[in-house]
């Protein structure tokens, strides 16, 4: 029985990671083709660092993800608190409005934003890309923070005020720590969505600003260049190392 459980877990992880492992192996393949092994080489890594377009896309992807998730988290958290304290009718209306960007297909959001930016005569570029990402991230943050707010004891805020805290201090020291897991989840969700996004980014960017999804997707007609495999390998290993370091630190804290 124990063997079966372990085997089952192994199978799940195998299916999840096998494609990534294959991807990493083929980043060392001398041939561009996935059907043939042409010999071991580092040349794709070398070419990756010479390719300005991919490096610039990587840079913009990370920067946009970081900024948009931070801004969206702040706005979303404050919005969630406001919505939570609204009267029932208003709350329903606003929550339904919040659901709209989530349900809408990306292409509708993307093209609408593009038309909006053109209408207000804002040139498509970094700023519009950032605004677009913040826009589609905010609902997800709100949706992550709301459950935590619902779980909050209704009177804890009043109690803090009674004990002499100013409203701001009460928020900062009492409410925020309680909802922090929801806020962090929202931030991580926003970050991931932003990293991933293709359709909305494609229609709201310009002036040479591209993100990785656009660059990779544009290679569809020609076939994905193994430079992308090299890049993905590097990104995967970086995130893996980061997670290991973070986990080691938190487990050390717990043991201490």
């Amino acid at each position, binding site marked *: 029985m124990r063997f079966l459980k372990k085997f089952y877990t192994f199978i799940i992880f195998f299916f999840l990671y096998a494609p990534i492992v294959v991807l990493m192996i083929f980043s060392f393949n001398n*041939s561009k083709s996935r059907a043939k092994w042409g010999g071991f080489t580092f040349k794709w890594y070398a*070419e990756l660092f010479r390719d300005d377009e991919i490096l610039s896309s990587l840079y913009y992807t990370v920067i946009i993800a970081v900024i948009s998730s931070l801004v969206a988290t702040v706005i979303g958290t404050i919005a969630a608190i406001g919505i939570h304290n609204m009267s029932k009718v208003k709350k329903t209306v606003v929550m339904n409005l919040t659901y709209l960007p989530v349900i809408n297909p990306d292409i509708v959001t993307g093209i609408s934003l593009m038309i909006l930016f053109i209408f207000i005569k804002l040139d498509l*570029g970094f700023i519009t890309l950032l605004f677009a990402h913040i826009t589609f991230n905010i609902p997800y943050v709100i949706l992550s923070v709301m459950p935590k707010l619902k779980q909050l004891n209704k009177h804890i805020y009043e109690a803090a005020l009674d004990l002499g805290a100013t409203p701001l201090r009460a928020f900062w020291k009492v409410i925020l720590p309680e909802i922090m897991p929801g806020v962090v989840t929202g931030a991580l969700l926003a970050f991931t969505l932003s990293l991933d996004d293709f359709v909305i980014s494609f229609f709201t960017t310009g002036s040479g600003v591209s993100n990785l999804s656009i660059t990779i997707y544009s290679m*569809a007609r*020609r076939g994905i260049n193994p430079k992308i495999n090299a890049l993905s390998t590097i990104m995967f290993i970086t995130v893996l190392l980061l997670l290991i370091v973070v986990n080691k630190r938190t487990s050390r804290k717990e043991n201490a």
Partner: protein
Amino acid sequence: MKHIKYNIKHKKQIVKFLALILLLTVSVPLMTGCGKSGNGSGERVVLNVYNWGDYIDETVNDLFEEKYGIKVNYETFATNEDMYTKIKSGGGKYDIAIPSDYMIKRMIDENLLNKINLDNIPNYKYIEDRFKNLAYDPNNEYSVPYMWGTVGILYNKTMVNEPVDSWKILWDEKYAKQILMLDSYRESIGVALKMLGYSMNSDNPEELEAAQNALIEQKPLVLAYIGDEIKDKMIGEEAALAVVWSGDAIYCKRENPNLEYAIPKEGSNYWFDAIVIPKTAEHQAEAEKYIDFLCDPEIAFKNTEYIGYSSPNSGAKEMLDPSLLNDKTAYPDDEDIKNCEIFQYNESLIKTYDEIWTRITAE
């Protein structure tokens, strides 16, 4: 008590430090980002170029910037339709775009392109005459060819023992489940039309019905309808015959010498990607310089070497390896392509083709 206080203070310091670093990293692109969208104090001209992904040698844009001092903002798109949507709506003021033949025709009809003054493009003389005055731009007013190719049959010599010279071989039951077709309706319906002896741009309902039926008949013999994975499948010898673009065929033949390419005698499609200047261009003169630069034999040679597709530039051809030049796959003679057609575009035609394709794939 003491060490708890220290931990909290320490954590606050680290957080403040990280926040500072973040702020610095973040403020840098915001400064440059603001500058970019407004072209700043107007010292350097910036050219916005819109091309397919992985469709230019990596050094070309840098060389252009060095030569002319004009900065190139390079963006990529995945399909002609995406590019068309962006340009038509006015988003992204592109000075240069490189669409395919049928899309260029559509953009000319909808008045989305500026005329190109060929006097400003001395290197135009290197474009071969057979690539001038093409159906989609008969007076060479709006486009300059960039890359070209054909559609044909890629087959494995060890798996196919007869001469491959007709589209009918794709309907041969001997090769059941060994045939790969393109997941693209114009190529697939076009192949069926050519097989039956009709034009690839036919809008005759009877001819289209016949093509539809032929494709439905063929379905059980087809291993898969795919896109770019066709290359790997053929190199891996998973199928005997496939419909491919000539550029992909050149690549496949290099990776697996058992593969060979043929343009059937009924004729086929020949396609062009060409450089155009959209109406939203703000720097016409600089855009024309860019086109001239791309037509420079050295640069055209770099591009065709990197991309691996056929170049319409005679100067670039002279620098090619003779074995590639003599390869009919890459550079067919006039004789081979005499029955080839360029795809035409017209809205009702596209709708009809789309419906046919839906019916075929749904069967």
